[in-house]
């Protein structure tokens, strides 16, 4: 018992010391930072805590902070009365943004309490260069001004478009901002509007930065969605919702932006005839893979339309007539990227062409007409015509390529490439269903092979048996005589029929089947002779005769003095048949 108490005492003492220790030498002023290394894109929170015993604590004197810019501050006091003793503490938080890189020092901070001055230790902070300019701000572009409505709230949302009167098909950017000055326990749930009336395919861009408004530092989350209006007229983008879940210390909130109205201008009416709907700024160029070829040997004509705009829905150029060439449907590949908040990229169209005659052939210029919303006018760009020298074909052909020709099966399949483009059968609609396992891998499949074997074998056996039975009916009857007799006895007992009549009938039937000859008409003497001739012992034969005699008499008058009574006659008959069976 004592042994256990000693370590427990030591532990208790240790705990007490640990609890009291910090209080003993504690300075009434402490300073701490939430991080000791950061980049110039970030801010550091410096928290100064002052504990006083009486009265209101005085604010600390902040020394000059070289290399830092104070971007915000907040304070809070806490007063406690415990057992009549009064104590107070105050917390001052300063948000500092580094404007220099390297090891920056926050010097010691002093406070005077009850005539005595206390100081904190200096804190060293390591600052690295961030991605953005030292002035901070959003990841891209100039620092964004905080909206006028934002004036000290904990959270605030806003949404706007960069151009409220775009042309149909012109890119606009819908920006959603979430200003937040408190820490969130859980991530907020962003619910964007449906953007009905707009075409939008790119992933929204997200940026994060800090800004100051009303004396508070806000963390700003910005979501930029690139939109292309598809219809003209006034379109209202419904509000974006932001569900901020409540944390341990904070209350949840459901925030909603104002709806944004976009007045989409229709394209001017004076569109050229070859305008097919491209809006933006584009260039066009054309190349070929070969400038020297032969009749029937294909050339790939590549036309690239690139620039700024809705590349994904860019209409195909109007292909000019190509006399002297046989052309095939074009294929296209699309490349897009977001560059400075604008979608840029290109669509590359490839057309396979086969020269049908020898000589110097020309691929004509391809024109592309688009509407430039910045200049508010229709513009046309063109490729240069391309000259191609076509030599006579490998087999001397100078005339038309015949698509009905059988594909040349042999080395080099240049000709067949072209036929493929035309002759490839179209894809099929997809339906449900998957490959079933090969049945040969299922054991039951192989077991089923045995069924006909067994079937034929069983049938063979059954047929054999039938023949045998037909040929040996007497023998079979003889073999089954006892079984039949026993069954008849059982039935007679069950039905309670006249034992004399039954016993006589059963015994005679048994003997008839066993001996394979009728015994009904025989006298007792003849039957005895027959049985003994068949090798039955006289005693057993006599027992059988006895039964028959008793039955004969019993059928007409009750038998008084016989050992064979009606109640045991059938059992006795069964026993005698058993004995006869052994002898016969």
């Amino acid at each position, binding site marked *: 018992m004592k042994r256990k108490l000693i370590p427990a005492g030591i532990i208790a003492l240790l705990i007490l010391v640990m609890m009291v220790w910090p209080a003993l030498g504690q300075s009434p002023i402490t300073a701490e930072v939430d991080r000791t290394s950061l980049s110039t894109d970030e801010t550091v929170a410096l928290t100064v805590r002052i504990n006083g015993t009486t009265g209101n604590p005085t604010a600390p004197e902040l020394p000059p902070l070289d290399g830092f810019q104070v971007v915000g501050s907040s304070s809070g006091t806490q007063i406690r009365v415990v057992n009549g003793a009064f104590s107070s503490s105050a917390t001052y938080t300063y948000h500092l943004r580094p404007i220099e890189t390297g090891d920056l020092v926050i010097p010691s901070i002093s406070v005077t309490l009850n005539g005595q001055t206390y100081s904190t230790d200096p804190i060293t902070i390591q600052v690295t260069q961030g991605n953005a300019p030292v002035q901070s701000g959003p990841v891209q572009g100039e620092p964004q001004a905080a909206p006028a409505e934002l004036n000290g709230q904990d959270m605030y949302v806003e949404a706007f478009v960069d151009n409220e009167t775009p042309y149909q098909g012109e890119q606009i950017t819908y920006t959603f901002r979430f200003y937040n000055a408190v820490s969130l326990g859980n991530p907020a749930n962003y619910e964007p509007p449906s953007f009905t009336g707009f075409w939008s395919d790119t992933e929204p861009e997200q940026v994060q930065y800090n800004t100051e408004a009303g004396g508070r530092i806000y963390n700003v989350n910005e979501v930029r969605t690139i939109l292309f209006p598809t219809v003209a007229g006034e379109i209202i983008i419904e509000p974006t919702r932001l569900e901020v879940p409540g944390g341990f210390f904070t209350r949840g909130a459901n925030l909603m932006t104002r709806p944004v109205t976009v007045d989409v201008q229709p394209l001017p009416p004076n569109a050229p005839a070859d305008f097919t709907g491209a809006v933006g700024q584009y260039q066009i160029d054309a190349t070929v893979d070969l400038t020297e070829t032969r009749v029937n040997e294909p050339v790939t004509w590549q036309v690239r339309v690139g620039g700024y705009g809705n590349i994904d829905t860019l209409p195909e150029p109007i292909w000019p007539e190509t006399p002297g060439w046989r052309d095939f449907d074009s294929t*296209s590949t699309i490349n897009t990227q977001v560059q400075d908040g604008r979608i840029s990229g290109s669509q590359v169209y490839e057309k396979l062409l086969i020269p049908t005659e020898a000589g110097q052939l020309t691929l004509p210029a391809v024109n592309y007409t688009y509407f430039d919303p910045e200049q508010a006018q229709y513009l046309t760009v063109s490729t240069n015509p391309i000259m191609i020298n076509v030599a006579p074909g490998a087999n001397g052909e100078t005339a038309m390529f015949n698509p009905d020709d059988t594909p040349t099966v042999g080395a080099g399949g240049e000709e067949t490439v072209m036929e493929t483009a035309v002759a490839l059968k179209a894809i099929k609609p997809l339906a449900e269903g998957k490959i079933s396992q090969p049945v040969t891998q299922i054991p039951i499949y192989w077991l089923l092979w045995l069924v006909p074997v067994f079937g034929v074998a069983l049938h063979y056996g059954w047929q054999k048996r039938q023949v045998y039975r037909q040929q040996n009916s007497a023998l079979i009857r003889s073999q089954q005589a006892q079984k039949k007799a026993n069954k008849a006895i059982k039935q007679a007992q069950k039905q309670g029929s006249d034992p004399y009549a039954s016993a006589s009938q059963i015994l005679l039937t048994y003997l008839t089947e066993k001996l394979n000859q009728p015994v009904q008409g025989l006298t007792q003497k003849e039957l005895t002779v027959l049985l003994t001739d068949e090798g039955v012992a006289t005693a057993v034969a006599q027992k059988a005769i006895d039964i028959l005699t008793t039955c004969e008499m019993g059928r007409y008058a009750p038998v008084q003095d016989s050992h064979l009574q009606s109640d045991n006659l059938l059992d006795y008959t069964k026993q005698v048949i058993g004995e006869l069976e052994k002898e016969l």
Partner: protein
Amino acid sequence: MKQKTALFTIILMALVFGVGVAWAQSAQAEFETGDVANQLYENGRYAAATQAYEQLIARGMANSAVYYNLGNAYMQQGEIGQAILNYKRAQALAPRDPDIAANLALARAQTVDRFDGGAPDDLVGIFNTAVQANLTFNQLALLALGLWFALGIGIIVYRQMRGGRGKTAVALATALTGVLFVISAFSLGSRIYDANNFPPAVIVAEEVNVTSGPGEQYTVQFALHDGAEVGLLETRGQWAKLALPGGETTGWVPASAVESLN
């Protein structure tokens, strides 16, 4: 007596039918929409369509139409080997589809390598080719089993009959069934043997050197090109042993250059 025979026949037929129904049910599968994949194809975005079809296959929707469409998507991108591979997979599931046959022929016409003696000239070979062109593996396996049952039933009925013209007719029918059974069983056997010993594969690299052993240090024997149809004999590490049609010429290629049908 006749009643018993009839009962016996009915039980046998029910067994065969029951097995058929069970297989039909196992072929049911959940349906994943392929509209997106087909849309991509129709819009000429073949690389994206290829990916979409591959995903559908990975998710279990592997039927002849998906493999066929995937083959088309590869064709459009000029990947003849992959196209042939997928057309052959489609054809194994739908051997009588004329579109698959047509596109496979187009793809084959673009391959560089030609092998002699591809078509069989013996009776069994011709018959095997005909069966393969018309029946899937499972159809052939079930046909052989069905003929085996019919043969069994025919023998029983024949033995049960008392003679006369009917019996002669049954004897003839049973003999015919027997002949058909032997042929189908032989064809099935040769298909199982080929699948296990000479699994079909296709070269899916533009050009690949065939070496005498599994490694680059071995002598280069010849080169094969995209779309060459070979038999895959063995895979050892990063190398695969191939046999050309006929089975006499063999060699090794990097395993990534060849893809098996199965």
